[in-house]
């Protein structure tokens, strides 16, 4: 996982899953997003090589994959740290002081929003509404949501994310 070795293809498991999923759609091109998710899951980010590999796998032109990857914000187009911290700053989180969380993270990690720590442990980004407004402010790290945050809980979470 997250090997960042972009020359290796997808795992056997993922390839099998892709073939199964293709049968679920009238046009196999539909599995493109899922194939990109798998690539990102196994490689951490989606490189030029990754896009070409997925294009061949799904059977679409390379430029189509490029168009899709650049359209959806969750696809990483460059390497990210082991933990990508995505802090929601949209209205409901903003009303509950998400800006302070972002400031706190920038100060603690000594990076600007959008940056990655030199030890490659954290990447910090600002997220649009994560659909968790009732437990604002919220941060997503990988597949996990951290809710009702304040700076003290944030510090504890960061300590645990090795």
């Amino acid at each position: 996982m997250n090997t960042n070795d972009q020359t290796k293809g997808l795992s056997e498991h993922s390839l099998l899953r892709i073939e199964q999923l293709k049968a679920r759609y009238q046009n196999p091109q539909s599995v493109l997003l899922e194939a990109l998710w798998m690539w990102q899951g196994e490689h951490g980010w989606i490189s030029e090589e990754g896009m070409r590999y997925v294009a061949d796998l799904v059977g679409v032109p390379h430029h189509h994959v490029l168009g899709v990857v650049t359209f959806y914000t969750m696809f990483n187009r460059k390497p990210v740290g082991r933990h990508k911290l995505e802090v929601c700053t949209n209205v409901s989180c903003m009303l509950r002081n998400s800006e302070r969380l972002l400031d706190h993270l920038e100060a603690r990690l000594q990076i600007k929003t959008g940056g990655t720590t030199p030890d490659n442990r954290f990447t910090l980004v600002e997220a649009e509404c994560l659909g968790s407004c009732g437990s604002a402010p919220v941060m997503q790290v990988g597949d996990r949501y951290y809710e009702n945050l304040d700076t003290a809980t944030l510090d504890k979470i960061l300590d645990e994310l090795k």
Partner: protein
Amino acid sequence: MEPLLLPPIPEYHRIGVYEAHGGYAMLRKALAMNPAEITNEVKASNLRGRGGACFPTGLKWSFMPRESAKPKYLCVNGDESEPGTFKDRQIFECNPHQLIEGTVIACYAMGINAAYLYVRGEYKHWIDLVQQAVNDAYERGYIGRNILGSGFSTEFTIHRGAGAYICGEESSLMNSVEGQRGYPRVKPPFPAQNGLWGCPTTINNVETIANIPVILRLGAGAYSKIGAERHPGPILVGVSGHVNKPGVYEMPTGVPLLEIINTYAGGVPGNKKIKAVIPGGSSTMLLRGDALEGVCMDAESLKAAGSSVGTAGVIVMDEDTDLVKVLWRIARFYHHESCGQCTPCREGTGWMEKILKRFVDNNGTYADINLLRDVANNIEGNTICALGDAAAWPVQSMIRTFRAEFECRVRE
């Protein structure tokens, strides 16, 4: 009203518990009915879509051709990306089987053999929960081939998005299911004629679909008497912002906004006054805090108040809120999420964000207020999809109802 969408039953998300409380009985009932009868029942219930447009669900279903040489499809919209909206997530987490049951009933009613549940990419955790429920339902024969021996078959596939607000727009959602960029399509043709892969398609919101088993259980007559007359049924209201108990609350439609804020959500911290309320997610028109009396959470009441029910995502802002900053943040969101197809939206949303930033920095001018209004007016109605309108409405309503907020930020 007993909770119909989110019953407070422990472990209700498990198939065994759901079945023990009468789950999937409505699917059995539906499979014994004539499909057209089900659509008529949904029509008679007066259920209106819970995804924001409040379109009558039964009417939408009736647009689907009965006979079709091409396959027909159902897309269930769980993109849930409207700021202030977090209700479908509760269904995924607490009541996934009612969503599945409703989906299969809808497929049967419209003669559909494949359903796609589109869920925003960020909700990976909830996708896994629903996938587990789907697997269990397949195992018990509620989805798949020859469902419960009826001869009817339908597949259920979860399609994960990857971070794009626009994919909640139905035609954009279909493009995303097709493995493309989420560009909205020009309508007409409408999805019921020309949807997914050019085939007849219906798109319904997650909460809408979760209402279907309820309608069959209570009967259209009883269902239509719940809540507001012209927009009946249970509704999931998400309350966020400056309230003591933010969260998702199930209630009949037609509950006064002030009751939602003060009783359900425990009022405003520090007993502060309410400055403004966004009643239905960030694209609905802002209401003044001093004009909430008598305004209720249903389509007609909110329309009369100059706003709309949207996705029932209520964002409460207390008297200390910097509304100009809130509006700038909303404008930034729409600028970020504009897909870029239509010039008025692509350029206009960025322009509005820039002008609003000037006010945030106390650097606006009186001319900027008019310019902002002009840009908003030139986006509204001039784009393929409603994102442009959604970006324009908060700006227009804010200038109309809170002009002083801008004027006090004009540079000396």
